[in-house]
């Protein structure tokens, strides 16, 4: 095999090189590969060394494998040989066919040049002939062109000469569009030759055009024309270079001016409303203002619609106008409701405004008028609600303050009663009216109101809440009790005037608070539950809505406070009286008592006043009193007398005994049930009077305790108290307490007396009788003077 391989070696190597140089993608690799790495077993590598390979083979493999390898290799070599032969053959074939083709080409190209020359010649002759024709026809063609141009010119001239007439015709037939088209067509010529040849013509047509412009303008301004026509007119005018903008401005200004006419001035508003009222009787008589207004607004909106179409670029301005009108409407409405306005009137005006808004909104939906006006409407309605409440409050306080009460009237004539009744009525009537008004608001079915329903309910509830609160505050302020809550507006001023306010009025306020608590608030809450519920969800976000329970509590507290204040002011007055009585004289050097001191009269007089005031305002107590006054009157006096007799017996002898008496009274006090002097005041005539008396007697006792008396001073006190007993018991419900207090005064005086020797009962009696007779006489005198 080695011998066979050797001759093959040269040839094979060459072949392989060729093939690989032909097929190898990169010959450099193959060369470099041969030089560097020589893998012996890779038969395909360039550096393959057959001898080494053989050696390796022989060394590595056994015979069988070698044989196999030999067979395989021989087959491979045969294959390679056939492949090679095929390749050579194919290449050879191609070469032969190429040679054939070249041979054919050479024979075909022969004789082509002669044909080419012939063709050139023919083309030359065609060209020369066409040139001849051209030159012969040139003159004629030029002539024709000239003629044509002249004709066109003539036609134009004709058109221009005809222009005025044509324009006139157009004016006559009002086909301004054509006229404008004609005129614009003629414009360039007229511009160039207008000063020379076509002077007349130009003038005439300009005149005509002017007429047209004028006509167009009138058309534009005339409201009777259809919008389409007016829009066209505007377009034409624009084409004629007439300054349309100024026209637009003028038109819009006119529109703006017309706004003033559309205003609903507050004065007129009432007129509007009134007229609507009376419209039922006198409908046909005249154009109603409301109707007139509606027409005006309709016109306005029509105009807006027109302008919008005519001047599409003027929307902004129209928006502004529409907004201005809406704003103005609501401003005026606000001004209007500043006065007292019923809900019906308010609604009527509101409806008119709303209609206007809707009209305008139709025309200018982009202006978002409805949003704007919805906001404004909310504000206005809210204000209206608030104002209604403040009016109500004003009403009530006016009713209270209307009566110029002076002391005498308050007692003599039943002014307090009148005031109370009037203000009660004002309260009830006011709330009823207010409910009616609000119900109207709610029943209103203008879109916006339906939307605002919940809000309105919330406002109303809130309104009531605030109303009652401020009413309470006002009551307190009126009574002059609010020195600490001066954050209430004008509290200081009220406080100053509080001196002037009559005490009776405080009583009225107290009773009124009770009335509000028991009657008005339940009623209001009922009403709210009946027809104003549902708004809660919104209202709660803004704050507490109407909470009747809380208000009741507030008014309850207020009524008690006011009643207490009444009693305070009353007792204060008496207290001043007593203070003067006890501060002025020197009790240690007091002279023997001659008569009952006159402060007792004043005291009783004050009490009488209290009684009269109370009788006017407060209800009578439910129990006993009535039967008692007459039948028991004598009884009590006798019993009291026996009491004093008893006392007298004890205290008769001397000061030593007086001390023991003091001790005894102390003892008695221990065993006596502790008399509740300061009980809760009730809203009855008796309770108030009793409380007043109790407080005064307590003050009397305290004043006595602050003094030191000599015997006569003590006797004077004894006499005064003795005198007081009968009339006090007559007026007062709780006799035991009064007895106790009167005794206390005596005890206090005896304790503070240096030399306790009470007056003898006969003297006491005599002095009292004298006093009674005197006062009777005095009364008679008074009556006489009154009757005469």
């Amino acid at each position, binding site marked *: 095999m080695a011998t066979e391989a050797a001759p093959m070696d040269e040839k094979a190597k060459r072949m392989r090189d060729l093939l690989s140089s032909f097929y190898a993608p990169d010959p450099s690799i193959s060369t470099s590969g041969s030089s560097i790495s020589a893998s012996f077993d890779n038969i395909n590598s360039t550096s393959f060394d057959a001898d080494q390979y053989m050696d390796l083979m022989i060394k590595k493999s056994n015979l069988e494998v070698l044989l196999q390898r030999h067979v395989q290799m021989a087959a491979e070599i045969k294959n390679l040989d056939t492949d090679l032969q095929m390749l050579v053959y194919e290449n050879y074939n191609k070469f032969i066919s190429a040679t054939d083709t070249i041979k054919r080409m050479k024979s075909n190209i022969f004789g082509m040049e002669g044909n080419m020359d012939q063709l050139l010649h023919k083309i030359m002759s065609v060209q020369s002939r066409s040139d001849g024709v051209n030159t012969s026809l040139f003159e004629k063609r030029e002539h024709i062109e000239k003629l044509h141009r002249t004709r066109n010119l003539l036609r134009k001239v004709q058109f221009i000469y005809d222009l005025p007439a044509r324009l006139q015709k157009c004016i006559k037939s009002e086909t301004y569009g054509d006229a404008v088209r004609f005129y614009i067509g003629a414009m360039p010529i007229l511009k160039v030759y207008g000063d020379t040849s076509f002077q007349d013509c130009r003038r005439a047509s300009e005149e005509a055009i002017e007429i047209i412009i004028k006509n167009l303008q009138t058309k534009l301004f005339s409201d009777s024309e259809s919008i389409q026509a007016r829009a066209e007119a505007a377009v034409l005018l624009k084409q004629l270079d007439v300054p349309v903008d100024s026209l637009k401005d003028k038109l819009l200004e006119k529109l703006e001016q017309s706004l003033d006419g559309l205003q609903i001035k507050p004065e007129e508003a009432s007129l509007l409303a009134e007229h609507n009222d009376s419209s039922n009787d006198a409908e046909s008589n005249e154009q109603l203002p409301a109707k007139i207004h509606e027409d005006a607004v309709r016109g306005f909106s029509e105009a807006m619609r027109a302008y919008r179409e005519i001047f599409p670029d003027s929307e902004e301005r129209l928006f502004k106008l529409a907004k201005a009108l809406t704003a103005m409407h609501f401003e005026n409405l606000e001004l209007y409701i500043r006065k007292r306005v019923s809900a019906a009137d308010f609604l009527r005006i509101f409806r008119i405004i709303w209609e206007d808004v809707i009209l305008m909104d139709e025309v200018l939906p982009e202006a978002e008028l409805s949003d704007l006006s919805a906001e404004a409407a909310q504000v206005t309605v809210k204000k209206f609600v608030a104002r209604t409440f403040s009016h109500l409050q004003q009403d009530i306080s006016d009713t209270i303050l209307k009566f110029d009460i002076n002391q005498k009237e308050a007692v003599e004539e039943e002014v307090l009663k009148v005031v109370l009744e009037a203000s009660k009525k004002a309260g009830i009537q006011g709330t009823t009216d207010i409910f009616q008004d609000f119900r109207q608001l709610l029943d209103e079915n203008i879109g916006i109101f339906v939307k605002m329903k919940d809000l309105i309910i919330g406002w109303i509830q809130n309104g009531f809440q605030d109303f009652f609160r401020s009413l309470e505050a006002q009551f307190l302020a009126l009574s002059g009790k609010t020195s600490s*809550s001066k*954050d209430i507006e004008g509290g200081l001023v009220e406080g100053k005037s509080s001196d002037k306010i009559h005490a009776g009025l405080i009583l009225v306020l107290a009773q009124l608070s009770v009335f509000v608590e028991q009657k008005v608030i339940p009623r209001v809450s009922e009403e709210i539950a009946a027809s104003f519920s549902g708004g809660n969800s919104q209202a709660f976000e803004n704050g507490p809505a109407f909470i009747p329970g809380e208000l009741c509590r507030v008014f309850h507290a207020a009524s008690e406070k006011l009643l207490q204040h009444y009693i305070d002011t009353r*007792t204060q007055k008496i207290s001043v009286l007593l203070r003067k009585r006890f501060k002025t004289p020197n009790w240690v050097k007091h002279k023997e008592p001659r008569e009952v001191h006159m402060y007792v009269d004043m005291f009783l007089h004050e009490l009488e006043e209290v009684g009269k005031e109370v009788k006017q305002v407060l209800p009578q107590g439910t129990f006993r009193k009535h039967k008692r006054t007459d039948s028991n009157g004598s009884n009590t006096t006798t019993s009291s007398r026996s009491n004093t007799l008893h006392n007298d017996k004890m205290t008769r002898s001397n000061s030593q005994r007086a001390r023991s008496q003091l001790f005894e009274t102390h003892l008695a006090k221990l065993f006596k049930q502790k008399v509740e002097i300061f009980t809760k005041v009730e809203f009855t005539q008796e309770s108030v009077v009793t409380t007043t008396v109790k407080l005064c007697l307590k003050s009397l006792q*305290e004043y006595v305790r602050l003094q*030191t008396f000599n015997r006569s001073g003590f006797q004077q006190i004894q006499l005064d108290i003795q005198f007081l007993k009968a009339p006090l018991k007559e007026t007062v419900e709780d006799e035991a307490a009064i007895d106790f207090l009167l005794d206390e005064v005596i005890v206090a005086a005896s304790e503070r*007396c240096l030399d306790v020797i009470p007056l003898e009962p006969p003297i006491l009696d005599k002095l009292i009788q004298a006093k009674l007779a005197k006062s009777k006489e005095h009364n008679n005198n008074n009556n006489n003077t009154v009757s005469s």
Partner: protein
Amino acid sequence: MQGGSSGIGYGLKYQARCISDVKADKDHTSFLTGTLSLKEENEVHLLRLSSGGSELLCEGLFSHPNEIWDLASCPFDQRIFSTVFSTGDSFGAAVWQIPEPYGQSNSSTLECVASLDAHVGKINCVLWCPSGKSDKLISMDEQNFVLWSLDSSKKSAEVLSKESAGMRHSLSGGAWNPHDLNSVAATSESSIQFWDLRTMKKVNSIERAHVRNVDYNLKREHILVSADDESGIHIWDLRKAKVPVQELPGHTHWTWAVRCNPEYEELILSVGTDSAVNLWFASASSERKASESPVEASRLRVNPLLNSYTDYEDSVYGLAWSSREPWIFASLSYDGRVVIESVKPFLPRR
């Protein structure tokens, strides 16, 4: 709100109006009280709260020549006190010293340190300088007030200055400003007057009729509490004295006296002729926000009355906080009953 019988009682023999805390006694909670009896021999009782706080013991009993209308303990010497007394038709004021071994309970006589005899009319009260060291005294009658300098060792009192408030204002009492020792508040018929002691001039006044008693808040400057017959208790900020800062309803009848707690600035006690002692919580400060809405304000109108002690038989005139144990107060009703109560359950949490 019943007062109950939690208080510790002590009975005087006679009627009495005045009780005073013995401020200088640092070791015990003691009170001095004096009787008001026209015909009997009057007594001054020195009362001491036992260490357990469960008993009120009489530490000393001294006879006093006349009925006592006002009594004030000296702030620096526990043995010294002042009284205003009446003999029936005339008034006097004096400074007394408790005799040395005062532990014995039998009646002994008081030593008169000085007689404050510069007055003619009805003397209302004697005020000790609240600084606790100064030996200054003020005595007040209906028209005049006199500033004294007391020398207890020499047993004399010297008139430093005297000023007449004028006939029209009949003074009824007063309080010495603990924050400004030159300022004294005096109550008169129609107003509360503020006097500067350096110039002896009236510097300011609050127009308010029939004020019966005033007291300075010891903790907070410029705050004055007044009690009057009709309208209860008012709290004033002296910097803006036009309107009261707060109003408390007071008592059913006259509010006789008010006392601010020496430690807890919000606590105010008042006594009244309705036989009750009321404990108030007056958080009201001058800084109360004006922005409060009426709603909020009404919510804040919680009852300021913490407690009403009603276990008295007669009008209560005497009232004193203990400065040693500021949650304890002593009250004295006209029938001579001293009641010591503790306000501990009502102390504000701090």
